[in-house]
């Protein structure tokens, strides 16, 4: 299912300087009951965002209107834990198109790229610089350039390059997903599968 193409994203960012943010925090299990992919953004970080009585927790960053933007900047080991893709949907549905961290859990990274979110892994030092830039000015913009594979703090001009596998990059830039690709090689797969042991 194609999504919007991702090329260059210039945006303010929302800082979440917490390490090991796991997918149970991103979207608690009780919100996985839906049979449609709708409305997950409302429950993004539900238990950090809202009290038990559904009133917002004012000290949580998503409830602080000075921060906004299409980029979420998280602490190290972002997206660990359960493989639920709902975590990526919640992030996408909320309006983020890119997550920056100094380390991502594997499954989360895969799930994200597959639905059109770009995970950008930077060094610990650069992550710190990003957090400092946002702290100094919540309106500070980042530029994520996928074709060039760079992320830049526009206020200071500091920049770092990031890795992405060429295939995923090609898909993101064109708004394709894996299934589009696999559908195109259907016959090759059937032939292989029919010869396989199981």
């Amino acid at each position, binding site marked *: *299912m194609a999504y919007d193409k991702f090329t260059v994203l210039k945006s303010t960012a929302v800082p979440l300087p*917490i*390490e*090991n943010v*796991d997918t*149970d*925090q991103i979207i*608690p*299990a*009780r919100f*996985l*009951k*839906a*049979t*449609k*992919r709708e409305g997950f953004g409302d429950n993004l970080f539900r*238990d950090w965002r809202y009290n*038990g009585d559904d009133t917002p927790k004012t000290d949580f960053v998503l409830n602080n209107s000075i921060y906004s933007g299409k980029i979420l900047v998280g*602490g*190290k*080991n972002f997206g*660990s*834990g*359960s*493989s*639920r*893709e*709902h975590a*990526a949907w919640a992030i996408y549905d909320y309006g983020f198109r890119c997550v920056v961290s100094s*380390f991502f*859990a*594997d*499954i989360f990274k*895969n*799930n994200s790229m*597959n*639905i059109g979110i770009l995970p950008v892994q930077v060094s610990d030092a650069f992550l710190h610089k990003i957090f400092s830039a946002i702290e100094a000015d919540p309106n500070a913009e980042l530029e994520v350039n996928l074709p060039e594979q760079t992320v830049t703090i526009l206020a200071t001009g500091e920049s770092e390059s990031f890795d992405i*596998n*060429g*295939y*995923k990059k*090609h898909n993101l830039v064109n708004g394709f*997903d*894996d*299934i589009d*690709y*696999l*559908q195109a*090689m*259907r016959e*090759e*797969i*059937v032939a*292989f*599968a029919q010869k*396989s*042991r*199981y």
Partner: protein
Amino acid sequence: MSSKPTTLFDKVWDAHVVRDIQDGPDVFLIDRHFIHEVTSPVAFLGLKNRNVSVMFPERTFATADHNTPTINQHLPVQDPLSANQLKALEENTAKHGISHWGLGNPKNGIVHVVGPENGITLPGMTIVCGDSHTSTHGAFGCIAFGIGTSEVEMVLASQCIMQPKPKKMRINVNGEMHKGVTAKDVVLYIISKLTAAGATGYFVEYAGSVFESMSMEGRMTVCNMSIEMGARGGMIAPDETTFNYIKGREKAPTGQAWDDALAYWKTLKTDEGASFDIEHNYDGAEIEPMITYGTNPGMGMGITELIPSAEDIDAGKASFAKSLQYMGFHEKEPMLGKKIDYVFIGSCTNGRIEDFRAFASIVKGRKKADNVTAWVVPGSHVVEAQIREEGIYDILIEAGFELRQPGCSACLAMNDDKIPAGKYAVSTSNRNFEGRQGPGARTLLASPLVAAAAAVTGQVTDPRTLIA
């Protein structure tokens, strides 16, 4: 004849690569696909939107487990959302001709329990499911791992997923294990050493005498938790123990097909001299019964030890403090003697017959502590039947426990089995994340023996003090 020494992982992986995309992932053939009610509905919806059918319906198996009640399964499911998911699974599988063991079916149970139990899981297979503990099937020498919902759709549509080949790690544990130390303790010990992210990017092979002498149930417990050290999955080479377990199970090969399969299975091991990207070695004699004190499975310790201080570990200090605060614990205090409120034995980690035997071995002749609420949840109807046949049921009832019906239950607390906020639960499941077992719940992961010791004493207790 002599080719380059190869790892078990490479042998299985390479046999499944349909196409190797340049600077991209491999197009990787999946032999068996398990689906359940929670992560499949959106995938089927995606197929419908694309107007694509299921490529090989006979290679996918469905069971309902994640969001099912563990009492009164014969009655209509109360929660409308759960009922909706169960109905969607039933309709989708019927429409596409996929085998479905729904609620009430005698074969129903937790996906990673029923797969092996029915001989669906066989050595050398590639297996995926929209649940991260799919790594369980690695116990049979399979490459098995959890996938997201897009990938569920992908496998339904094409029997393949896109997968870059992970790096290889071997974890060797040798030496004599002490009494009262189980497979769960071995894996919690490894995770405590490697940390919850220590194997990220790797696929693990477990090797050494400790795993060789383990039962299939124990091997499944170990492989199940591979994901909790960040690994994509973990596997153990099949051997006589594996073959004996499989033989005679419903979907296992028979006759000539069995002989052929066996000949192939015997080739599934890492050759002498094959190399890994990294290896770790541990001594089985060093391991004692384990328990976790924090909010990720890497925060585990020997049960007689003291909770470490932030200085002792190289994780983030702020996260460590936050974690202890959530748990209501302090640095440098013992876990032994801590009062607990709930005990949960079950899940795909420790919901097999051997786990209930272990639990019963301590409970027998004792009584459940009054301050403890216990949920004893078999992994499948087959396990439940065994519990009754072997007399474990009577031991449980005698000691004041009740037996629930199979399902994931408090492992992820999607159904009504939620630990209340602030309460302490000793759980044999696999995750102790904040809120995993219910909002505000505090989870202590441990083996069935430690869970039993806690259930009868009402506090964290070294099970070795209760073993005759």
